[in-house]
């Protein structure tokens, strides 16, 4: 095993790798002109990013909102249903195969149907796709978390004559919370990806995905890449926020 990196190196090392790769890219495109024509220089991408910042931000807002609505609704639905499944065994039996079915639904397969169903002026199809994608990991993780209470803790609450509601509030829920956060972290990335991919299959003519497709088709590769950078930014923000939440909640988990 290699020794752990010092704290500063953990930030500097990946940044250095990124800078080196960016340098190679610039050299290939701008200096030796070896790259295919569809690959723009990072400099050109940066220029497009600055030039079209306002509309890129607008489209980012559309996609991020779709992802967020899908993530929120899908997660709430997943939490409620997982709670029911954990509390009532027959419901668990009923839901398990359904969730397995939803988990294997290829998002790209139903996206055109949903988009057509709700029309070219509605974001609902995209939000629904993000919601379905977010639902599965949240449901699975919350259901698992609700079953993680330790026997010694259950004995303790029974010995303390706690009511079922008190047991849920003081033991079951806090035990499940880190699992919920893990589910949310996984779901957040899936929701962003799904909301973006859904835009490739119709619906309103806004959003990062639509813009990437339009720019690429009209040969504006640098602009397309600028939009890709916008998409990455959305994904990063979602991931970082949910990771932070997860870290806060799991701080006190192991004993």
């Amino acid at each position, binding site marked *: 095993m290699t020794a752990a990196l010092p704290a500063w190196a953990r930030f500097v090392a990946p940044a250095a790798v990124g800078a080196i790769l960016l340098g190679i890219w610039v050299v290939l495109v701008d200096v030796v002109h070896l790259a295919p024509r569809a690959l723009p220089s990072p400099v050109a991408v940066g220029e497009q990013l600055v030039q079209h910042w306002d509309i890129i931000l607008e489209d980012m807002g559309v996609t991020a909102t779709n992802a967020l609505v899908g993530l929120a609704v899908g997660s709430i639905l997943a939490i409620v249903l997982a709670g029911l499944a954990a509390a009532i065994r027959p419901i668990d039996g009923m839901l398990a195969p359904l969730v397995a079915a939803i988990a294997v639904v290829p998002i790209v397969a139903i996206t055109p149907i949903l988009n057509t169903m709700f029309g070219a002026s509605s974001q609902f199809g995209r939000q629904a796709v993000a919601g379905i994608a977010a639902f599965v990991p949240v449901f699975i993780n919350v259901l698992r978390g609700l079953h993680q209470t330790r026997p010694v803790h259950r004995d303790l609450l029974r010995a303390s004559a706690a009511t079922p509601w008190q047991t849920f509030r*003081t033991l079951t829920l806090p035990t499940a919370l880190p699992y919920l956060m893990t589910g949310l972290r996984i779901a957040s990335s899936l929701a962003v990806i799904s909301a973006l991919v859904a835009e490739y299959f119709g619906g309103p003519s806004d959003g990062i995905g639509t813009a990437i497709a339009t720019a690429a088709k009209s040969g504006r590769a640098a602009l397309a890449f600028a939009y890709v950078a916008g998409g990455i930014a959305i994904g990063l923000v979602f991931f970082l926020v949910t990771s932070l939440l997860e870290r806060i909640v799991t701080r006190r988990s192991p*004993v």
Partner: protein
Amino acid sequence: MTDETIAVRAAGVGKVFPTKAGEVVALTGVDLEVAAGEFVSLIGPSGCGKSTLLRLIADLDEATSGTLSVFGKTAHQARLDQDYGIAFQQAGLLPWRTVGANIALPLELHGVGKADREARIAELVDLVGLTDFVDRHPDQLSGGMQQRVAIARALAERPRLLLMDEPFGALDEMTREYLQSELARIAAETGAAVVFVTHSIPEAVFLSDRVVVMSPRPGRITDILPVDFGDARVEGLRESPEYFERVTAVREALHGAPVERPNER
């Protein structure tokens, strides 16, 4: 009133666990009385039903035969009335709660007001010597400290009966002896009756007024030995000839015959 002078009364208590391979008799024909304020240890090899008996008294499991009463009530009613406090081999602290909040958990569950809880926490952390750690979380404490928090939690509602299931079983010998002395002091100070499950002979002898010796297959009581050190449970006791005499007596009762060469740890 007999209700107040007898903490635990078991008559003909038995427990049968149904398993796939058939019924397993965990406990049979247990007759035992624990007086108020008395310290009684249950000792015996694995499978002798000592923990099962404790769980029956705590109403964590139900007896399949016989009658069991705690301060004259059914075990079920005694649990609902919070007549006992309990500590397990694992401290069983909630990791997301501070030491203080863990100790106050039973009080919180029974609607004790915040000011009263704070006052009680202060008393209890002082009793178990953890005043400086009241705002720490369990993962910042050693195993022995966690167990002291668990004992403080068991004492939170001033129970007249303390049930302890090998609370020092997972600790090293030094911590263990220290906590035994602490427990002897706490039990004397609070005047609570204690039913204490252990598989350590010296521990049982040091702490108890009486040692209940149990035997497996089926789990039953084979002997009850008085120790009678009174209130003289100080460190010097561990070195005294009377102490070794009692240890030998319990060991012989456990093995069912005089032991040639006592193998003291």
